[in-house]
């Protein structure tokens, strides 16, 4: 039984982390058409926030929860700066955003490397010690935490999009930018706030990632491509697709890693996503719109 339970549960947790990393991209790429390759470094900024918080508050039981909003703010503000200084000038040139943000990504990475060449250690809180026993498999509590965090982000974002006036404006902008503007919505402001929230979510993902692997200059690079794949495979402009795609990639990789090995699993999953996109180039779900764009 544990042969089946372990990959299922761990894959779900991997998928949850991928989801947090991809949620922000689903917003900025899906809504604004900005390919932000520096999104990975926003995760790193979140992970670094966790480390710096631990330097100030030495009790890890408290520092990690405190680090979550801080990471959101730090990564969000980084996103705002990027939007205000570079991206706002190239909203109509998506491929240029790709090039510019790759540059920003490299600069941020090297800046981190200059200050912390060996990376930084982030310690987990003691309330994440221990395991849950599920059908004979001792499931690490840290995995449960990742899932709870992802659900929190998802529900929070979903509720904000659905029930707040800000959320309605975002959705209006996604569905038909020109029409939204004629209705008096300042799409520029909406874009800016969306970029803040999307980047902030990466910060939260960074805290979760810092509890799983190393916090070093390469952290962002590990998540950026899988996160983009998940967003594209899920279909743009919809959270539902991103959630399903993230879960499928997470669980698929875990089972494949269990049956074959870690390297082969990565190759097979990426190949499957590529094949899937050949069959369904728009991804799992598409927003139907009457917009001409």
């Amino acid at each position, binding site marked *: 039984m544990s042969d089946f339970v372990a990959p299922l549960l761990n894959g779900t947790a991997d998928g949850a982390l991928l989801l947090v990393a991809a949620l922000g991209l689903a917003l900025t790429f899906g809504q604004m058409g900005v390919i932000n390759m520096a999104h990975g470094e926003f995760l790193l900024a979140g992970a670094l926030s966790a480390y710096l918080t631990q330097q100030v508050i030495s009790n890890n039981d408290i520092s990690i929860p405190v680090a979550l909003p801080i990471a959101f703010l730090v990564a969000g503000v980084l996103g705002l700066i990027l939007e205000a200084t570079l991206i706002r000038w190239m909203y109509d040139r998506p491929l240029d955003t790709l090039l510019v943000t790759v540059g920003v990504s490299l600069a941020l990475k*090297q800046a981190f490397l200059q200050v912390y060449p060996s990376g930084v250690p982030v310690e987990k809180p003691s309330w994440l010690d221990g395991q849950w026993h599920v059908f004979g498999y001792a499931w690490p509590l840290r995995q449960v935490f990742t899932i709870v965090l992802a659900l929190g982000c998802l529900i929070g974002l979903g509720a904000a999009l659905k029930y707040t006036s800000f959320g309605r404006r975002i959705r209006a902008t996604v569905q038909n930018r020109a029409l939204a503007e004629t209705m008096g919505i300042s799409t520029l402001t909406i874009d800016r706030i969306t970029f803040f929230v999307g980047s902030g979510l990466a910060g939260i993902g960074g805290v979760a990632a810092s509890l799983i692997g190393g916090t070093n200059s390469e952290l962002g690079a590990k998540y950026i491509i899988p996160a983009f794949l998940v967003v594209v495979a899920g279909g743009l402009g919809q959270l539902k697709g991103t959630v399903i795609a993230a879960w499928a990639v997470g669980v698929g990789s875990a089972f494949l890693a269990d049956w074959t090995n870690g390297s082969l699993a990565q190759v097979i999953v990426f190949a499957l996503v590529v094949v899937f996109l050949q069959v369904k180039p728009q991804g799992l779900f598409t927003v139907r719109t009457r917009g001409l764009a």
Partner: protein
Amino acid sequence: MATTKVRMFAAAAAAALIGTTLAACGSSGGGSTTAAKGSCLDTSGSTVKLGFINSLSGAMAITEKTVSNVLHMAADEINADGGIMGKKIEPIQEDGATDWPTFAEKTEKLLTTDCVAAVFGGWTSSSRKAMKPVVEKHNGLLFYPVQYEGLESSKNIYYTGATTNQQILPAMDFLKSKGVKTLFLAGSDYVFPRTANAIIKLYAKELGIKIVGEEYVPLDKDDWTTQVAKIVAAKPDFIFNTINGSSNVGFIKAYTDAGLKAATTPIISVSIAEEEAPNMGAPVTGQYASWNYFESVDTPANKKFIEDWKAYPGSSGVTSDPMEAAYDSLYLYKAMVEKAGSFDVDKVNAASDGISFDAPEGTVVVNGKNHHISKPGLIGQINADNQFDVVWHSEGVIQPDPYLEAYSWFPAATRDALVKAAG
């Protein structure tokens, strides 16, 4: 709109893929094909140029920067002491940038444009394999300071780190002495762990140790949870860890999260040293590592080495095995040149056999035949200060045997297959 975005993404992904593929293809070697005849080395002045090549940017900068600093420290020391044959060292530093073709190109530049007498550096086996054809083509010299998978020997390379019979085999002897019956192999997916594990499996059979599992994860992936679940199920006496880089952090975290402990399921590593131990973000106290040098080694040379390093600008504060091997390499080169009475590569090679240096790890001696050096085999256990207490050492120094020719359990067919696979 959505379709254009998908297309754009596809273009971006394709560009990224092409980039990676090019990097991978380039690893087979680089540089131009025109063979240079004779060296452009000019030693008529009062200085001698030496090339240092280390990744100062990219993922490997984490570890290679320290090696670069320690090479500069050794050069400063030698210069303060009069230089090599009375000539001051003039170091020329190049950035390998964690990119193997770059290592090849920069080595070629150092040898043919800067006309250096020898090149020092490299860390990953991929970088060494990229530089090897270049130093061989130009009949240059490379001093490579990191433990590696063995099965290699070049008249143009000196290997001052351990080969397998100086690090992997002592670790197995130690496990045997601890009465270990079952072993789990966890490694990163590249040439060193794959080759090391092939050797470990053969030697384990000889020692009567059962291998109960073998798992690999790509170097760029940190999450080990799925693989650690398999370790928990296999209940091994010991874990042999050949994971490298940041992935080690993910492994130690997943190990801790699964409730595994040093007291019941200890790990022996070959890539966790003094610099890595405090950066895991999870306790590693009580775990083991196999090296040839620890900061805790008690020799007069080590005392001086540690003091000098702590005072050196850009120092990381702690010393480790690859740093010490890099430090030794410069002193060994100096001794070879002075014995040969010349910077000429062929004369240096002819003089190299038997050259010794009272290194921080103890006296090391160059084997002129295979260009490796003799080393003591040491097993350290990590204490609460993230330093290593030496708990086991080999009987005397271990002579280098990169092709494991002295070991009857290592079949020639396997050797040929591994050499071929390693390229």
